[in-house]
């Protein structure tokens, strides 16, 4: 048997763990959760097999986005401490394999969604992949500090897709859920980018703290939190949800605003002294999980 010269580790067949890491599993968990919540909040619950397939497709599409994002940004990832150990910048994987994997996974997820549920859900799924990869990753992220604001729409699609997969049509509540995630994304990411801004600066990514400074970013975080809180509470007065959701959303949003206010009041520029920013970032993840949990609870609990 002829032996192969393997001086370059990327020439080896990729380890399956690296292929899995390409899908950004941690990001996928939040996407799957919001997609599932959108589906469970819908008035029609699909058969178990179709509901499971719809969520699987959302997860696969998120994985495809992660893979394509890492393929496109491999050179930027190599410059940031947080991302330098990913399979592509670390040289453990061939870039073309990542590209093929991402495109294949994305195409498969859209096709399966269309065949198993409905083609409106499949079109929305395809739109979310294209939006994330082309509009956010390729176009906005390297060019403008507003990348997160418009790019946030990509992450806002899952509850809408979950709802449409269950019902076959768009309604007011899933559009509000879309708006909540859309408005939640800037404060969430800007809180993170404040305490890792040296990483973004090193990679030349124009995140808001790098371009506009920390004070302006803190102000923007607070001002974006206000419409986010309003959108989060809105389904209750509009009669789209009950008091379980409404009261919980009001309390959660109040805490979010208090934490955003603490960020606004912080004057530190050293990341080691950015406790309010770290607290807001951690709470923002909990906030979204909690909000969508009470949304589903409100739908199924009898009072």
């Amino acid at each position, binding site marked *: 048997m002829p032996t192969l010269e*393997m001086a370059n580790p990327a020439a080896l067949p990729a380890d399956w763990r690296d292929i899995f890491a390409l899908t950004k599993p941690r990001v996928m968990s939040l996407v799957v959760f919001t997609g599932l919540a959108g589906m469970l909040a819908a008035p029609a619950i699909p058969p*178990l097999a179709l509901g499971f397939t719809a969520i699987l497709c959302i997860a696969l599409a998120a994985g495809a986005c992660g893979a394509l994002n890492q393929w496109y940004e491999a050179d930027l990832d190599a410059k940031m401490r947080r991302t330098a150990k990913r399979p592509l910048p670390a040289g453990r994987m061939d870039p073309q394999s990542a590209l093929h994997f991402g495109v294949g996974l994305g195409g498969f997820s859209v096709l399966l969604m269309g065949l198993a549920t409905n083609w409106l859900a499949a079109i929305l799924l395809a739109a979310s992949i294209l939006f994330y990869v082309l509009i956010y990753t390729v176009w906005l992220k390297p060019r403008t500090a507003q990348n997160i604001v418009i790019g946030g729409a990509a992450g806002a699609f899952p509850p809408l897709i979950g709802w449409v997969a269950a019902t076959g049509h768009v309604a007011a509540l899933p559009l509000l859920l879309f708006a909540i995630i859309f408005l939640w994304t800037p404060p969430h990411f800007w809180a993170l980018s404040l305490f890792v801004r040296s990483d973004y600066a090193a990679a030349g990514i124009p995140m808001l703290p790098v371009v506009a400074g920390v004070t302006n970013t803190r102000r923007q975080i607070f001002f974006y939190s206000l419409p986010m809180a309003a959108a989060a509470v809105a389904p209750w007065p509009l009669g789209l949800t009950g008091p379980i959701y409404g009261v919980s959303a009001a309390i959660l949003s109040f805490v979010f605003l208090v934490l955003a206010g603490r960020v606004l009041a912080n004057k530190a520029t050293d990341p080691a002294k950015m406790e309010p920013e770290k607290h807001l970032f951690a709470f923002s993840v909990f906030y979204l999980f909690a909000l969508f949990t009470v949304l589903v609870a409100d739908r199924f609990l009898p009072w």
Partner: protein
Amino acid sequence: MRPEDEIIRKRQRERARIMAILLGGFVVLLFFITMAKTGLNW
């Protein structure tokens, strides 16, 4: 066989095993999707 060849074979075996599991799962999923689509609602 060189150590590098051994790594290649090991990775190929692992990937083949995972691919087999995923394909098996996909077949089962298609069965249940078909049942649900035909109105049997398993």
